[in-house]
């Protein structure tokens, strides 16, 4: 009877795998990715998932199998009196080491692309300053230089043209914040006292054909105080024309004298 405990442990691999499959098929999975590098990250996530999934299922099943088979009440044979196996130790040291080393080295290029290889000539530059509890966004304006009178200011509303390399100069005015774009697989802490470059390219406006603009969440992902949850911004990906129109609109509003 007590071997039935192993059935409780059996629920772990079964339910675990089922939950993952069900979630992926019912919309409880990674948000749509519209960035140029996002598919690499998603691929690596899935790679880790499959690898760990296989190891998970095998080891849990081995555990369950042993729990079932070697229950004292059902198993009358004397125990296998052994202190271990040198060969086994070697095998299950070398194989995991090699695997882990491989996983690490396999991913280095992806990391370098997203965080280390700063593009020298982006199409769009925009400054995003995080403060408690909003995103203050500034475009350089017609002269292309920040900190001049023609800069265009907006709050929580970041517009970028589709298909162009965007460079965000990320800063913070007060405490740590984090610039998180779930749909572009971008995440970077904003540190006061530093200007951190964050670059991305939105490959398409959205998965809806013919859409000329679409809005995505910009989330703060580093605890910044009581209003951390309130720092909701939006990223609007749009066609070049719409983007120009947005900037022109901003300029008009900013210079309103009536």
């Amino acid at each position: 009877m007590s071997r039935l405990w192993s059935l409780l442990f059996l629920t772990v691999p079964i339910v675990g795998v089922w939950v993952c499959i069900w979630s992926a098929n019912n919309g409880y999975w990674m948000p749509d990715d519209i960035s140029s590098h996002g598919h690499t990250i998603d691929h690596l996530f899935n790679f880790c998932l499959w690898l760990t999934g296989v190891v998970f299922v095998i080891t849990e099943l081995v555990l369950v199998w042993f729990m079932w088979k070697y229950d004292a009440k059902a198993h009358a044979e004397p125990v296998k009196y052994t202190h271990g196996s040198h060969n086994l130790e070697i095998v299950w040291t070398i194989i995991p080491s090699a695997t882990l080393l491989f996983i690490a080295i396999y991913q280095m290029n992806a990391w370098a692309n997203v965080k280390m290889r700063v593009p020298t000539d982006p199409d769009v530059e925009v400054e995003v300053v995080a403060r408690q509890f909003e995103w203050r966004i500034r475009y350089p304006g017609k002269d292309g230089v920040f900190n001049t009178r023609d800069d265009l200011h907006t709050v929580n509303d970041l517009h970028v043209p589709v298909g162009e390399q965007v460079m965000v100069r990320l800063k913070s005015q007060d405490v740590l914040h984090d610039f998180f774009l779930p749909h572009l697989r971008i995440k970077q802490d904003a540190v006061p006292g530093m200007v951190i470059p964050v670059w991305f390219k939105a490959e398409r406006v959205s998965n809806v054909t013919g859409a000329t603009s679409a809005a995505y969440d910009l989330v703060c992902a580093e605890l910044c105080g009581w209003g951390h949850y309130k720092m909701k911004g939006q990223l609007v990906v749009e066609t070049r024309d719409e983007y120009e129109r947005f900037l022109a609109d901003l300029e008009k509003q900013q210079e309103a004298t009536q």
Partner: protein
Amino acid sequence: MMGLSPEKSTNRAAGESLRGWAAALCLLAALGCTKADPAQFKLNMEGLDPADFVASGSTDEALAERIAKIEQEPDPDEEQLSELQNAQSANARAKGLRDLKVALHALFGTPDEPFVLKELQTQPDTPEVGFDLAKLRRAAGPVSSLEDGTQIGLYRQHCVHCHGITGDGVGPTAAFLTPYPRDFRRGIFKFTSTSESAKPTKDDLKRTLKQGIAGTAMPSFALLPEADIDALVEYVKYLALRGEMETALMSYVDAGDPVPLTHEELLSELQNYASMWDSAADEVITPEAPPELDEPGLLASIEAGRKLFLDAKAQCVQCHGPTGLGDGAEKRFDVWNEAKTDTNLAFFSLPKQQLQPRNLRSGVYRGGRRPVDLYRRIQAGIKGAQMPSMGQTPAKPSGLTPTEIWNLVHYVQSLPYEPTSETGSPERSIQRDRN
């Protein structure tokens, strides 16, 4: 415990105390699982000693009898007489407060079920005037959502923890903020498009909600659906009107007069305030357009503005300082904090907070950075905040002319970009970012 072995008696004692603890815990859990009372508006007792409003314990008739008796005496005891008279006033004030609550409840309802008199509700042909009850109902009450995703309880979801359930600016978070959140109850709002003594328009309130107030804890709610913002604007107006009405009725209580309780009396009192809100749209300041200026013209305007800034006529430097850093003032307080004195500070919820005149070199403009916004700040001042109205009006013909104000606007706009306004290396600069 004779006859029991030591460990048995320990066990029994332990068992008893264990049972006691278990019972206490069950009781606590049961208590905690009962529902809290629904939220109530708080009385505006800012600066007032609640002890002054406690009834004396004797009825009015009994007091009147005793006073009459003493007055009949040949040598009336003045001390006793004044004591009894004080008791009478205390009774009157306590009654006044009760009547006040009844009146406010009748006029405005509760935080879960708001209400305005029929006469104050919007009519279909004048949507800009009056209150839309449907919008109020959306903004009020506990947070929930309908089947179609419409959010209810917007005020409590977004605003209550700073602005408080009564709109008194004393929510749980308020104590930690500089500046404090707005107390709506005076009906005074700082950043409006209207003239000095006028209320804000609905558009003004909408702008504040949508763009937030830069440099403060008031965030931008631009990403909320338009309908949600409209509902919140309605509710803010409602809380403001309710607060003003409460102050008006309170003056009756203070004076010892009976609080009006009939529909007609209350309505006429209310109309005084509601009409100011309704007429706000007529008081919008629309400046004359500034002349089109080329580069040298703009520089000349800036120079003229600079001279005017330093001139005593414009009164700028006494608060903003000669360099515009906001370091020119003696201690000043806004109208919400002015009322706090050493004697009555204990009866206010929040400590006294000093006003900070704006540092004009930072490029952060709380009321908006557009030229028209800056114009309006100078023309009409900032209500409640010691920024005086400097512009010309029919009542004040000696004020600044539109040209002068535009010159000042150009000067102020240029300040953040002067070389002296740079701090440190651009790569490491933090707050002087013109953002």
